[in-house]
């Protein structure tokens, strides 16, 4: 089903006899596989309102992400949360939609500074499991009118409702950017270096570490963005600050190269084309290297990428490995896994009993018949 309007979509849901598999661009085959009729939002595609002077954009859920980004770029603006393109990692094809990005709360390296997708999301319209068209939030930057179901819909993976329209806060593309690279650090030292940078007043917009970077050696990357004066000033300050960690410090000021480097982090290029399962682990930054060290005890050759100053750990492990066997405070999500892994291991971290009961209660209210991506989140 590819409805052309919101009300058609609502009719599709209201009239559904069984489970529906909600699809945007179909580029994110993540979660427990769902059997059901495909309901696509691709027919709802339109940037319906864009006010650069108010930093807001409103788009129908099926609008390709690339179209939203191109619209913004024409005015020198962008999405603050830097969403990744999952096609490379998952080997998929097609075009990611803005609704899919929101439903999966996809947030890239700038999450640590500009917030997650949910933080940029100002309002939603969606169709619940009974086919009711609902809205929450709006298109203004500050809004505490009633409960914030906007955040709830972000990252609900189509299990609470089918998004039909999203409004987002955007930001101006800064005039300059730079990347301070530290070569040769151990994971632990790299996280310390990133913590030092993130604890400095230099307004870091990205902090990542690859134990084995493009050339096979460890590289730690710190990004700054802003006016030319600022970037030059902060790059110099950070160079001094980071020297104490022992690695060789280099400043990259070629914007194309900086952008390419961060796209490499954002899209987890390191693990593209690989054969193992790929997990995304969210912990407090200092915990990142511990989790990895424990995983390496049984799997010495896993490939690893730290983002968010160490707080987001991407690991590629042999198929079927349960990374949660290592204990940590946080959560792990299986992003790329064989159907087999996805059927034996929970894709999303299971929650404590009281939390799970609340989540379940909410699902029953939003989708009493249990037809929207049933079971996708476990």
């Amino acid at each position: 089903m590819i409805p052309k309007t919101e009300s058609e979509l609502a009719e599709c849901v209201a009239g559904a006899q069984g489970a529906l598999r909600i699809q945007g661009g179909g580029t994110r085959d993540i979660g427990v596989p769902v059997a059901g009729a495909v309901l696509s939002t691709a027919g709802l595609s339109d940037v319906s309102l864009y006010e650069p002077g108010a930093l807001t954009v409103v788009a129908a859920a099926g609008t390709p992400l690339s179209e939203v980004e191109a619209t913004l770029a024409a005015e020198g603006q962008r999405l603050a949360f830097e969403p990744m393109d999952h096609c490379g990692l998952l080997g998929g094809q097609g075009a990611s939609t803005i609704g899919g990005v929101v439903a999966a709360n996809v947030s890239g390296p700038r999450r640590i500074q500009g917030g997650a997708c949910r933080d940029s999301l100002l309002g939603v319209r969606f169709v619940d499991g009974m086919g009711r068209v609902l809205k929450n939030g709006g298109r203004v930057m500050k809004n505490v009118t009633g409960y914030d179901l906007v955040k709830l819909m972000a990252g609900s993976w189509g299990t609470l409702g089918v998004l039909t329209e999203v409004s987002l806060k955007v930001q101006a593309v800064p005039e300059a950017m730079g990347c301070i690279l530290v070569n040769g650090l151990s994971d632990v030292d790299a996280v310390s270096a990133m913590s030092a940078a993130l604890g400095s007043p230099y307004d870091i917009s990205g902090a990542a570490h690859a134990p084995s970077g493009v050339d096979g050696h460890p590289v730690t990357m710190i990004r700054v963005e802003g006016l030319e004066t600022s970037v030059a000033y902060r790059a110099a300050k950070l160079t001094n600050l980071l020297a104490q960690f022992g690695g060789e410090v280099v400043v990259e000021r070629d914007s194309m190269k900086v952008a390419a480097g961060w796209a490499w982090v954002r899209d987890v290029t390191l693990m593209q084309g690989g054969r193992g399962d790929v997990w995304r682990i969210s912990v407090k930054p200092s915990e990142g290297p511990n989790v990895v060290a424990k995983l390496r005890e049984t799997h010495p050759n896993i490939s690893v990428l730290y983002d968010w100053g160490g707080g987001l750990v991407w690991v590629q492990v042999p198929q079927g490995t349960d990374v949660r066997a290592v204990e940590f405070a946080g959560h792990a999500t299986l992003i790329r896994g064989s159907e087999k892994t996805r059927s034996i291991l929970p894709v999303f971290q299971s929650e404590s009993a009281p939390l799970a009961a609340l989540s379940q209660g909410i699902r029953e209210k939003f989708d009493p018949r249990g037809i929207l991506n049933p079971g996708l989140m476990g």
Partner: protein
Amino acid sequence: MDMPTPNPEVLAKKAHIVARLKAVLPADAVIYEEAETRAYECDALTAYRCPPLAVVLPASTEEVVAILKVCHAETVPVVPRGAGTSLAGGSMPTADSVILGVARMTEVLEADFANRFIRVQTGRTNLSVSGAVEEQDFFYAPDPSSQLACAIAGNIAMNSGGAHCLKYGVTTNNLLGVTMVTMEGEVVEIGGAHLDAGGLDLLGVICGSEGQLGVVTEATLRILPKPEGARPVLMGFDSNEVAGQCVSDIIKSGILPVAIEFMDRPCIRATEAFAGAGYPDCEALLIVEVEGSDEEIDAQLERILTIARTHNPVGLRESTSADESARIWLGRKSAFGAMGQINDYMCLDGTIPVSQLPLVLRRIGEMSKDYGLDVGNVFHAGDGNMHPLILFDANKPGDLEKCEAFGADILRLCVEVGGCLTGEHGVGIEKRDLMVDQYLPEDLDIQMAVKDVFDPKWLLNPAKVFPLTASETRRMAAE
């Protein structure tokens, strides 16, 4: 303001309820004498008052659990309270309710600078959270003007903002986790020191739920390194349109000020008379503040001033010292006090798309004439969050009602132009009945359904947020 009739059964068994509460709490943590409960009869929306049945002041999550189990078993409504600075009546009691105040829960539980978070008990005041991390050059970003008094508990419940949220976001963007006790007395841990939820984002729902979903006892908050410095610039304009255009141009230019504050003529005149900050006498005034090192600030201000000059300002004042910066902020910071000198005032909090600023200010001016009540506008212009202050005389019969009608008209106008009823103060009782202007019945129904999940008996702060007629069946079912 209508409030539901207090449940006579609850009123009748006051002694029994108090006895049960005393059995689970230290003696000085239960207040029930009429003379003492009066201290809790209202919050900062002082037009509405009602002493509660009793007040409890727990010191730990365990005590909160014990209290809620008693109240749940006895079917007593509970109104959570932080510092009582809500401007929306969020913490106003009903006669049959127990006020659960977290004011004694002020501990810092953990401060972690490498991982940039702090965990506190929620009775701690907003400013003292920053105070606890200041020596290490960190701060907690959301900074409501009430930050000296208001508690993190209330900040979370109202999703409070502040002057600097243009750059740093509001409470929800800086909240990593909470310990919450449900009405049934169950402790739920949500989030933690890591970023973003694994499952559904319940933290996002708790924040801003106005004490209706659970009692938040502990919070993990993101802390940030202090900027090297900050400096404001003041600019005056001949018309609101031009000032509004200047705001848009600054925002579009790619510079991200930490604050863009706006004041209109009535407000400028009132603050001048009150504080004498030396503001130009003009139609509209902007204060724009940027952060960074000295040279970074210079570079940003140069851009901002260049933009401002294209709009023919009637006054531009740069700061070259901490003293001058303080003087620029002086008028803005004393705006509420200045208006209060003139008369009683009601402070509104609607948000509008920035592009609608001139239209909305013009309409407010027209309505002010129609109602015969003066109004001053002071607000966070960068994000469109307006604070019209309507002056009225509380001792003059009918004036409060007239002021409320005027306020409601302004808020409806905010919704009409694409904005919302409240940007940071919350709905409480104040805007409860206007919710139908922003949301359709089914939009309210799905929100109430969320409350059904967390608090099936509708005992937590039940008469707030939703129009009484909309929530009636649900509230009645509980009794």
